[in-house]
């Protein structure tokens, strides 16, 4: 049982011309077992929503609330949010030179669980996930994200999702830059996560392509820092046919 509740969230960033409001009151509830897709044009604030929930220091929350199972997420530090059960698969995962994937995964798993994973089962788990994500055995010895192809970075993000097993996953444009084979592997990974008991997914995307593989329960159209429209999966089909012009037009 887990619910991520976002109410009237307002977020600004610092710019050279002073603070700029990016999110202008976002309200969204993700209950367990639900997959929500957020779709919108570039610059609409989709990624800002993802990073604000994860607690990136660049984004300043000026209003509203975010709670996970009633707990105030905005009061938590970045790592506390992750330990509380939030996971952000990033659009641009960061390189950490000299830190091996194996060391990184074990350190993260230990932090999330509060104890080191049992060595025998852990190695098996990691190898299993790597295989399912189509990452070869030597991958664990490489430095985190360093020299990874775009596809490897995204598959590594989903491998983490599988191993760290959060309550709610936010996927920020995980589909961008993937060829069709990688997109399938990544989508299968996300779907395996969704099959687990009580998991919520917030899928942020610019394209409808990934929604053929990951079926959302709800679709929200994001324009200019707000939810401009909401509906079921059929809304994605409409967006695929007509694009965002309708929403951009009404904005003016």
């Amino acid at each position, binding site marked *: 049982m887990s619910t991520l509740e976002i109410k009237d969230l307002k977020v600004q960033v610092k710019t050279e011309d002073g603070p700029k409001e990016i999110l202008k009151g976002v309200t969204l509830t993700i209950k367990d077992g639900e997959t929500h897709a957020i779709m919108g044009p570039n610059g609409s604030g989709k990624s800002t929503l993802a990073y604000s929930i994860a607690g990136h220091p660049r984004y300043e929350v000026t209003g509203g609330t975010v709670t996970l199972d009633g707990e105030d997420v905005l009061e938590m530090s970045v790592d506390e949010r*992750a330990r509380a059960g939030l996971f952000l698969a990033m659009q641009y995962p960061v390189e*950490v030179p000299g*830190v091996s994937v194996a060391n990184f995964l074990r350190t993260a798993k230990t932090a999330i669980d509060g104890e080191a994973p049992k060595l025998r089962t852990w190695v098996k788990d990691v190898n299993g996930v790597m295989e399912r994500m189509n990452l070869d055995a030597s991958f664990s010895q490489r430095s985190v994200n360093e020299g990874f192809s775009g596809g490897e970075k995204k598959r590594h993000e989903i491998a983490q999702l599988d191993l760290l097993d959060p309550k709610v996953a936010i996927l920020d444009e995980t589909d961008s830059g993937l060829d069709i084979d990688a997109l399938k592997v990544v989508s299968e990974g996300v779907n395996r996560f969704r099959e687990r008991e009580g998991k919520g997914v917030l899928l942020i995307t610019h394209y409808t392509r990934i929604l053929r593989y990951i079926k959302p329960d709800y679709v929200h159209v994001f324009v200019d820092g707000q939810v401009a429209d909401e509906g079921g999966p059929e809304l994605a089909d409409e967006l695929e046919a007509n694009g965002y012009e309708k929403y951009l037009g009404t904005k003016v």
Partner: protein
Amino acid sequence: MTAVAEALEAADQGHVESHLNPPASYDLADHPVPNGREEVWRFTPLKRLRGILDGDASSDHLTWETTLPAGVTLTEITAEQAVEIGELAPNERPAALAAANSGGAMLLDVPADTVVEEPVVIRLKGSSVDDLVWGRLLYRVGAHAEVTIVLLHTGSARYSAIQSFLVGDGAKVNVLSLQDWDDDAVHLGRDAIRVGRDASVKHTSISFGGDLVRMHANVEYAGPGGEAELLGLYFADEGQHLEHRLFADHNAPKTKSHVVYKGALQGRGAHTVWIGNVLIRKVAEGIETYEENRNLVLTDGCQADSVPNLEIETGEIAGAGHASATARFDDEQLFYLRSRGVSEKEAQRLVVHGFFNDLIRKVGIPSIEEKLLETVEAELAKNVLKELT
């Protein structure tokens, strides 16, 4: 005449004025006592050299303990023999003083075609900073020989040394010099390497201890096709001055130099200096050079100076580049790790370890790599990350 035209004319005459690297000479008159304003001395606190710059001959010694695998010999030679063998002449005062005052030299010989499996280890230990020690060492590696040489400096002394590595054609040499001195030691070191035709040399300088450490690593080439990889790692604590000066003199075509130095600083008055000089002479067509220095500033009150220089006299090269960065923790790296539940301190620890691991695994001497990781761990435990230990 423009400066470029002058330089080109000088190059035509086979003579290059590299203002950053004074001409080599055994004559002390060519290396006057610096006043601290000279380009090559301006970063160094001269007072803390504790009299080395006008030091006299001395009978003080470091204690030597060596591991010499079969096939390798170590002998005492005269100053004249050192010059005959082809010692690379001093290009600054401390090295010239070491040559003048050491009263002889030690020669490590690796015969041609000898592949030495185990590392040669030379442990040099000083007993007191009151001792003024002059060192003069030559390493002669014959053609197509392969050897790893590890030099460990511990204890304390005021030590000024001139070292020459004469690497034969096609040889493969891996040198590591570790400065793990006590807190009060002063070490001025000049390592110069002549890389034979198609030879490859890796030279790693690692400085942890000492009050003031100033190391040169110079490379020149005896023929085309030589490759040099110059690595460095340093960790400056409160009040320490650690200076590393590199000079890659591309005096032959199709040669390569690749420099990577990484350092961390913590504590008030921790000061590091990295000077990376590359000279590409007119004859040096088709060469490739890259130099990189990265400094991680862990606390307030530190200073990291980092100056890459490139002098180019021919444009007919395969590649030349440099990078220098001095920064605190990368917020994006910390965010990424923390977004996976890792605490801020643990994330910092991972990033610092990674920063050094990246370099340590390039050293290529397994027995030393483990020790280096431990030392980095101990350094970190001293200050920034002490809550974790």
